[in-house]
């Protein structure tokens, strides 16, 4: 009973970390997509201009907030779940979630080779943690 309560807590932490990561990465990717090529912005208005452009994007700010929460959630999770479970579990869930979210929300062309890559990365990450 105690063990299942602990693992429930561990898995809800892991799910929370993955969900925050997916939200953060998709929001940031959407922000960068709407800003356009940073190399061009930097060539036109220098590094300060590029930083200003990024920081003034609301999508980026919400995404960065999610990533910051993700960071602290991960620190918290690492203190109650072993790294050997937390790292591959959050990484795999984040990869799958990102691919689905990129397709649904960012309308990226997730073709067969990219799905295959997602599956390979997930299995690979789990194997690496063995």
């Amino acid at each position, binding site marked *: 009973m105690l063990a299942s309560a602990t693992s429930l807590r561990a898995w809800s932490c892991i799910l929370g970390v993955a969900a925050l990561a997916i939200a953060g990465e998709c929001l940031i990717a959407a922000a960068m997509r709407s800003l356009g090529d940073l190399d061009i912005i930097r060539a036109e208005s220098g590094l300060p201009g590029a930083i200003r452009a990024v920081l003034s994007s609301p999508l980026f700010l919400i995404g960065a907030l999610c990533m910051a929460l993700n960071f602290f959630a991960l620190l918290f999770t690492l*203190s109650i779940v072993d*790294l050997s479970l937390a790292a591959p579990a959050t*990484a795999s869930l984040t990869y799958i979630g*990102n691919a689905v979210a990129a397709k649904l929300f*960012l309308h990226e062309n997730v073709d067969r080779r990219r799905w295959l890559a997602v599956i390979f990365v997930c299995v690979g990450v789990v194997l*690496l943690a*063995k």
Partner: protein
Amino acid sequence: MKHTLTPQRYLILLCVMLTASVGDTLLSRGMAQVGPVDIHHLGLLWHALFNPFVASGIVLLIGFFASYMTALSWADLTFVMPATAFGYVVVALLSRFWLHEHLSLYRWAGILLIVCAVGFVAGGPSLTEHPDQHHDLDIMDSGAGR
């Protein structure tokens, strides 16, 4: 189908691979020193920021964030993702050839899978071109209809 990555852009992707994995490793090392944090002692997280491993991990992760965002400004999220995964391979290979740790067969298999994943994605276009893509789909649809 556009796949034009300059050497400078490959360098950015290399930064994405290296900083994330090394930064995470430093963080986990630092948090192991800080000890367990529970919901009643969240102040310990603030204390953790001053651990040298955690602090240098954070510096590297800021570098990761900057290069990651640069990459996302000219490539798809699903294109950049395998690059971040390749970081795990870098850590595993570093531990094998630098720290002379033993890598099990499972880990070699994991390395092989992630390398394949990077290969799949790198072989395709780096950015979804939305208007063109619809055009391509229309052509394909008309082909299928015939």
